[in-house]
């Protein structure tokens, strides 16, 4: 059987009666059984819950009940979010199992209400930060495009599951790039939403003032469908926004004619560590959009190198506040990489933290001036393709650029889309950034690009059996 690889295709096939949710979900579970031991995407697989959801979805279709495009879609949840019918671990020995037991995070509650088939809980970097630690009882995630390469973090399992067709969509979280990194390294689409767009209640924190929950899927259309289910205020999260949510699919076919694209050359395109292919494929994305009618102007977003530092420092200071007591008493229960990164929060002062927030105010004003002149910015998502995991050095990473963190500091929405492949066959990615709450616009731009390219539909060799792109 030819299986659809996008939510959009699957939703159409389900409504045309060409496939059932039970068939789709069974195929996803079979794929998980075949591949999970190799690529390490799932911590827990909830076969019975997934199949019960699928059968309910099929019964609903038969009865004429349609809850929207996620109904009957095999879907999975990053194990940082509480789910009422599966354990929540944060990929850690530290998290009290009682914390996430017996209830759904707001985002999960909303996804469940769509009638999606929930396959289980996905691997992540411990507490959404750090690096895999093979000495701990959790799967080590691997990049399906090269098993020796990092799949990116922290939403590693979601990235792998979507890339391999184990799930057609999933949830990630993003504090400094954790939706966009695995989407980029694994070759699909991921949206970091505006801070406050999706309520965080029921999601274990990393950086309180930066965290966001976002959709990960093959395409911009799919990401829009997922966001439609999740966006909107909830009083349980006081940082969630009362700004009205939109229908993110309503205008997605609107194209980019007249769209003004800002290209921030400084830092984002001239950093000495930027890989030439990461740069050239991003410039090629801009050219494609220009060919579709967009205008392109160079802009300057000053102090973006400092914005990376401010974002990292804010994240680690807030994280260390949350973890300090456990770190003092259970240091070695944390993974090696996790504890060494979070503990950096012990090395900055309270004044440094406040200074980072003063810098944040300044940078936000500078960025607002830029966004008054353009509709979106486009940058590379990653400065190089996925590294060999064994060669990654935590301290050396401090010196590399981050093209994602500045937009967490700003709270802006940012969409990672596949932009091509390196000479070694590894995915590359471009990032489309919008003003606050401009998710519909960045998704429309991403969709326009994906209507004339097919990088987002490429499937790694390891997952090709039974998949037709």
């Amino acid at each position, binding site marked *: 059987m030819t299986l659809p690889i996008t939510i959009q295709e699957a939703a159409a096939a389900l409504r045309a009666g060409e496939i059932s949710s039970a068939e789709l979900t069974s195929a996803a579970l079979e794929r998980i059984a075949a591949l999970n031991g190799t690529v390490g995407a799932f911590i827990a697989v909830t076969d019975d819950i997934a199949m019960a959801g699928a059968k309910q979805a099929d019964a609903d279709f038969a009865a004429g009940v349609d809850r929207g495009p996620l109904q009957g879609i095999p879907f999975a949840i990053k194990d940082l979010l509480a789910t009422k019918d599966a354990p929540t671990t944060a990929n850690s020995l530290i998290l009290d199992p009682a914390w996430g037991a017996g209830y759904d995070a707001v985002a999960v509650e909303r996804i469940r209400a769509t009638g999606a088939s929930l396959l289980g809980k996905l691997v992540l970097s411990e507490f959404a930060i750090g690096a895999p630690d093979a000495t701990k009882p959790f799967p080590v995630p691997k990049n399906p495009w090269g098993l020796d390469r990092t799949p990116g973090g922290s939403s590693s399992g979601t990235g792998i599951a979507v890339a391999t067709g184990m799930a057609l969509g999933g949830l990630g979280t993003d504090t400094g790039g954790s939706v966009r990194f695995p989407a980029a390294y694994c070759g699909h689409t991921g949206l970091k939403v505006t801070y406050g767009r999706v309520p965080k209640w029921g999601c274990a924190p990393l950086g309180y003032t930066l965290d966001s929950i976002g959709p990960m899927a093959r395409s911009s259309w799919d990401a829009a469908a997922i966001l439609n289910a999740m966006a909107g205020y909830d009083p349980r999260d006081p940082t969630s926004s009362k700004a009205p949510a939109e229908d993110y699919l309503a205008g997605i076919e609107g194209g980019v004619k007249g769209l003004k694209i800002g290209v921030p050359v400084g830092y984002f395109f001239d950093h000495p560590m930027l890989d030439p292919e990461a740069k050239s494929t991003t410039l090629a994305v801009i050219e494609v959009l220009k060919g579709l009618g967009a205008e392109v102007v160079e802009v300057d977003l000053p102090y973006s190198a*400092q914005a990376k*530092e401010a974002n990292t420092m804010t994240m680690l200071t807030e994280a260390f506040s949350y973890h300090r007591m456990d770190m003092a008493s259970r240091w070695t229960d944390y993974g090696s990489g996790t504890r060494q990164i979070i503990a950096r929060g012990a090395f900055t002062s309270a004044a440094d933290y406040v200074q980072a927030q003063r*810098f944040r105010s300044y940078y936000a004003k500078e960025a607002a001036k830029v966004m008054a002149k353009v509709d979106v910015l486009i940058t590379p998502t990653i400065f190089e393709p996925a590294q060999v995991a064994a060669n990654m050095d935590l301290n050396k990473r*401090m010196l590399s650029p981050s093209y994602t963190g500045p937009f967490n500091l700003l709270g802006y929405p940012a969409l990672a889309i596949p932009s091509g492949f390196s000479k070694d066959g590894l995915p590359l990615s471009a990032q489309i950034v919008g003003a606050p709450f401009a998710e519909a616009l960045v998704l429309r731009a991403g969709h326009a690009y994906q209507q004339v390219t097919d990088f987002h539909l490429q499937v790694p060799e390891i997952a090709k059996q039974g998949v037709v792109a």
Partner: protein
Amino acid sequence: MPVPKDVPAAVRTMLEAAGLSVSEEEFKAFVEMYPMLREATDTLYVEEVRYEEPALVFTPVAPMKGA
């Protein structure tokens, strides 16, 4: 704030103040990391930020009857 002359001593003091007991290998990694972290943090003290208010918001909580 300049990087302290005796980085190992400064790192040891900050780890102790935070209640963290780390291995010798981890301690060496922190000693290697700390000057980079300090220098990165100091880049945030720029003249343009001098009169900025921090991006911090606190909302006073009204009395909660029956709590």
